[in-house]
């Protein structure tokens, strides 16, 4: 399944609030 990752935290929080949806943050150090 393709995930459309957001890379800007403030934009993600604003979108989550606007849509009343939870937000998942993936902290990774894996090679790209």
């Amino acid at each position, binding site marked *: 399944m393709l995930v459309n990752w957001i890379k800007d935290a403030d934009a993600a929080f604003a979108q989550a609030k606007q849509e009343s949806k939870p*937000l*998942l*943050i993936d*902290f990774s150090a894996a090679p790209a």
Partner: protein
Amino acid sequence: MPLEAHIKEHPAYFKRFEALWTPTILVMDSEGVERYRIEGYLPKDWFGARLKMGLARVAFMHKKFADAQQLYEGVVEKFGNLALAAEAIYYRDVCQYKATNDHTSLGTAAIELAEKFPTDEWRLKSLPWAH
């Protein structure tokens, strides 16, 4: 709503959200409050179960007990063989109690936990409910 925070691209996010290890997953509610944290790698099934636990926690903390109960029940049904199912059983029946004020649901949880997870911490937490 998925946010990617790679240590090379967003080191400030690690400090902001106190992520000290990778991989770390945070489940935040829509107000930006952390509700669930997963640290360390997990196989796909386990990870899916933990994510559901996180979403259930979000619903629980927002007092959406019917939604939370359904999510916890989904974990029990799909991942009943995993140890985290004990926590799901516990909170599933807490949600039932919170939604109905019927304390018998807590006794039901205590019985189920004693049968399925006799040595688990969540079973111990249910001991006061056993009559």
